[in-house]
């Protein structure tokens, strides 16, 4: 959906602002995954009414270029937001009890070299710079799973500016036009060390389900290695399979 007629000095102010924000997204001044200035700030900068700012923004939200997050701000989506419509063959988490409220807590977002272990998992050199993201998922305030992700920095260079409480990593990949095509998953039961057991609020000797995945894009490059420790008392993993024809 594009503007039908050229925007000029005589065009309504909200249309001028709409096109200004669009061009700032296109030229990279407003980066995908980051918040644009607030309605008040934009109104003040350009000396226009807040209602005009709101109309400009809601038009862009309607186009899918921006996303409004309650209490957080207006975020740039850039590339159209991709959604995982279907996964075939992978593990799915099934909760043992239904929950009302889910919540993600970002624990660590940092840079690190791949090192031997993750170089092996991702098929990159050990000195490859990675982003390391560690998040805790809670349901109704109780810890459910602890996820760590290792992602080559060159794939998602502006990850440090993205609010991972708002966007999932899969959405960030979509910002960069990365399409996950397939994954290899491996499930084991492991014992956590004392610090991680405390985070998940489990007895370290009881063991947790540990799901490790390497996900690849459509060109076959490894995009992420993830390790998710899941509480076995809260969740089961489910897989469907079918005879290959």
């Amino acid at each position, binding site marked *: 959906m594009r503007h039908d007629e050229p925007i000029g000095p005589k065009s309504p102010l909200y249309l001028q602002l709409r096109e200004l924000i669009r061009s700032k997204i296109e030229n990279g001044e407003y980066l995908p995954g980051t918040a644009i200035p607030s309605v008040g700030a934009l109104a003040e900068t350009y000396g226009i009414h807040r209602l005009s700012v709101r109309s400009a923004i809601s038009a862009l939200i309607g186009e899918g270029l921006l996303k409004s997050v309650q209490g957080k701000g207006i975020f740039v989506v850039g590339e159209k937001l991709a959604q995982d419509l279907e996964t075939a063959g992978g593990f799915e988490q099934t909760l043992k009890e239904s929950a009302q409220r889910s919540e993600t807590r970002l624990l660590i977002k940092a840079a690190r070299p791949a090192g031997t272990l993750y170089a092996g998992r991702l098929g990159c050199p050990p000195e490859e710079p990675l982003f390391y993201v560690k998040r805790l998922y809670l349901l109704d305030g109780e810890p459910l799973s602890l996820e760590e992700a290792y992602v080559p920095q060159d794939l998602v260079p502006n990850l440090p500016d993205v609010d991972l409480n708002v966007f999932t990593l899969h959405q960030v990949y979509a910002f960069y036009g990365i399409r996950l095509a397939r994954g290899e998953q491996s*499930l084991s039961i492991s014992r956590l060390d004392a610090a991680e057991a405390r985070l998940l609020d489990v007895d370290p000797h009881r063991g947790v389900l540990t799901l490790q995945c390497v996900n690849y894009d459509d060109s076959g490059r490894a995009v992420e290695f993830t390790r998710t420790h899941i509480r076995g008392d809260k969740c089961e*993993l489910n897989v469907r399979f079918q005879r290959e024809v």
Partner: protein
Amino acid sequence: MQEYRPRPSARARELLEGLLVDYRLRPGDRLPSERSLSEAWGLSRTTLRSAVALMEEDGRLLSRPGSGTFVAPEKYTRNLQGLLSMSQAAAQQGRKVTTRLLELRRTECDKHLARRFNQVLGYPLYKIVRLRSVDGEPLMVETSYIPARRVSGLEDKDLEHNSLFRVLEEDFGILPVQGEEKIGITYATAEEAELMGIETGSPLFWIVSMTYDQTGELMEYCRSAARPDRLRITTAMELRTEEVDGGEA
């Protein structure tokens, strides 16, 4: 952006796992001594020892008192796609499955089983309990239920030397077509512990599988308790993503 500084315990674990990646060390190889690793990595011996202990419990390393720490044998890998029988899958990995038949008898659906099979209470089933071992090491206790009317005379078949699915296919014309598995954690009962040579209360995989045949009927309902230090469960996943917008997808 900050540089990640792992806690010593996490670092020890990562470095130890790194030794096993890409077969730098192979199953059966001995790890360098605790002292040399602690010097090379700048980690305390206590930290290193607890990381080794966790990896031992997970079945990645083995300690033999007096002779050192070794890389554990590769776990048996069960891939959930493909519907291979356990013996076929093991053969592909160069391993041998042995089966001990613990129980084979006719039984009746209780409330729970009746719901699974979509039948009334008392619907006749065969119950088959088997201890499966890989290369002579106990791996899991499997309890299968099969509708009796489809497999009459099952008790005359040799289920210790033939795969159950092969018997179902060749002798009864029942072909597995699709299914579903649920995997969680359970803790070994005294009986399971004794059969599998572990301690009561050790965490085990709890695998519930439902397999449907060519007619769409539930042909087998199976519950297994498996040793996680000897089993790894894998699957491949395909992700289909689609753009979310108003236009053509």
